[in-house]
């Protein structure tokens, strides 16, 4: 089905919001205004937004160390995210989580995760809840090419397949695990072939093309909702920044980056929608401006927000203290 202009504008807005958020972070770190390990999602926007376009708040998404884009695509509030990165009491995790642990269960965001591969079984578990409680929801795990070499990937996909869980496993294949190129550590070119090990569909999408991801993710999510079980969806993509902000990039060439940027997901989206006459450049520029202002405001609010109190150090370790006291 064709997407309405309104819907397309919302998808573009989310991709732009991710791009602007990440570029702002790189700028803030460069200026020494922000600290911490930051893994930026810029370049991969079409994957998160193309997949999340099919998800509702009751649907869950388990993310990775590179989670900002997933959070924004799933609808997490950027002000809460920015405040979290600044370690503020107003952060979405009250400053306790930081970049690698942003979560918002109300939005179905099961959390970024600092352990490569750990989100995959978490998503299987959320899908198990949906199946047992018949919520009609689905659960998605997004993870990298490197994560597909983790035992947790294997165990979770096997479990989801044998139990026909309403889950979708999205591999964001950006060709690298930190500094190491995929061919050094993975004997197959397409992670999607691993679906055969679990008797589930393995699908490849162009991760730079919103519409290709949107279409293939749509089928996978529908299949899961129908109760026909999980799909392994591989999206070929690329990260523009290094593994983390500060990475010297000694392991890849400028030319390689340039080649991928020629297929930039936002530019490609604009070209196609404008050519199809469903979008006007003016509207897109307006969105760009609104998003830029939104991010600026988030930074200003975060920098002005109060820090947590050391008295909160022991809060929320347990839901109930237990013990005799």
């Amino acid at each position: 089905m064709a997407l309405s202009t309104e819907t397309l504008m919302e998808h573009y807005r989310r991709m732009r919001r991710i791009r602007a958020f990440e570029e702002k972070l790189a700028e803030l770190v460069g200026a020494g205004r922000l600290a911490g390990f930051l893994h930026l999602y810029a370049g991969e926007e079409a994957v998160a937004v193309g997949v999340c376009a099919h998800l509702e708040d009751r649907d869950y998404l388990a993310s990775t160390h590179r989670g900002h884009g997933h959070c924004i695509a799933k609808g997490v509030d950027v002000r809460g995210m920015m405040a979290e990165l600044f370690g503020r009491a107003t952060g979405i995790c009250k400053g306790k989580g930081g970049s690698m642990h942003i979560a918002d269960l109300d939005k179905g965001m099961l959390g970024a995760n600092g352990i490569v591969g750990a989100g995959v079984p978490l998503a299987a578990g959320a899908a198990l809840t949906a199946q047992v409680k018949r919520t009609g929801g689905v659960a998605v795990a997004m993870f990298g090419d490197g994560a597909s070499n983790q035992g947790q990937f294997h165990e979770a996909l096997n479990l989801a397949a044998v139990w026909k869980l309403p889950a979708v496993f999205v591999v964001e294949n950006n060709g690298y695990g930190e500094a190491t190129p995929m061919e050094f550590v993975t004997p197959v070119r397409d992670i999607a072939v691993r679906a055969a090990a679990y008797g589930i569909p393995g699908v490849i999408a162009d991760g730079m093309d919103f519409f290709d991801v949107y279409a293939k993710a749509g089928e996978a999510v529908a299949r899961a909702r129908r109760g026909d079980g999980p799909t392994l969806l591989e999206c070929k993509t690329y990260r523009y920044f290094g593994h983390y902000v500060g990475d010297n990039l000694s392991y890849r060439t400028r030319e390689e980056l340039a080649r991928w940027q020629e297929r930039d997901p936002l530019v490609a989206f604009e070209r196609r929608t404008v050519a199809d006459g469903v979008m006007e450049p003016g509207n897109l520029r307006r969105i760009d401006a609104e998003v830029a202002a939104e991010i600026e405001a988030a930074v200003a609010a975060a920098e002005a927000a109060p820090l947590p109190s050391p008295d909160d150090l022991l809060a929320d370790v347990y839901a109930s203290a237990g013990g005799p006291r």
Partner: protein
Amino acid sequence: MSRQLPMVAAINEALHLAMAADPNVIVLGEDVAGGGGRQDQGITEAWGGIMGATRGLIARFGPERVRDTPISEMGFLGAAVGAAVTGLRPVAELMFIDFIGVALDPLLNQAAKLRYMFGGKARVPLTVRTSVGAGLRSAAQHSQSLYNLTTAIPGLKTVIPSNPRDAKGLLLAAIRDDDPVVFCEPKSLMFASGEVPEGDYTVPLGTAAIARPGRDVSLVAFGAMVGVALDAAAALAADGIDAEVLDLRALQPLDERAILDTLAKTGRLVVVDEAPPRCGIASDVAALCADAGFDSLNGPIRRVTAPHAPVPFSAVLEDAYRPSAERVAAVARELLG
């Protein structure tokens, strides 16, 4: 006369009660049904767990809520964590705690930390049932007492019963607790009978119990070592030494008050643990008493533990490996002599 049941039956009863009372409680693990639920082949129920602790659950609650898992501890424990934060109350079985080697991350980095990392916006009502301890001639990879690893991890709770009554009450409390709880089942006690009240009751997590009151020396123990301590106390009584035996029941939260109270009463402390000595419960109890309990100490604090070695297979070696009532009594005598 009061109802006598083996610990495994008390655990089974607790599981039946918990599943009947709350539709969000599910049970998953290897062979928890054991290939049951094959009405066609007339196999409605097979093993019900290697010890039978989950017997009858699939027949009563069905395959949706009672699931045989693949041999994928990391995967199904991770899934149990994901299910717990999204609305279920899973009871997962890690057949032997030794298998934590292939199952640690969901406990260490997920279950234990999600709530804190998310600023308190998550609950992880997960219970992990697992068996601990030596004595079954199962050698180094099926006889460990690794509850110190889970006790060391902030965000987890760890409990261990010494008798069927507590096993039932602690398990019901663990399942209903909103935090992740590791429930340790001492292998060597699973088929030992004891009094078990009918119906639904809980034993609060983090409360120790005095298994035997005494005045002269405190023997602090838990799990299978409570029986060893009680036997030692009986032997000591014969020499006119009146030992108090404290059963910790929970390793985290630790009932520090009860430990300091018994020390204040006797002034002498022997801690008994069947795990090796390094970074264990015995050291924690000793360290607590050497700090907050220092003024009560009338002598050194002794620990009777397994040696710093893997568990050997041969019966003669394994018997020498585990703390015995004789060793505990000898150490206590020496403290008083």
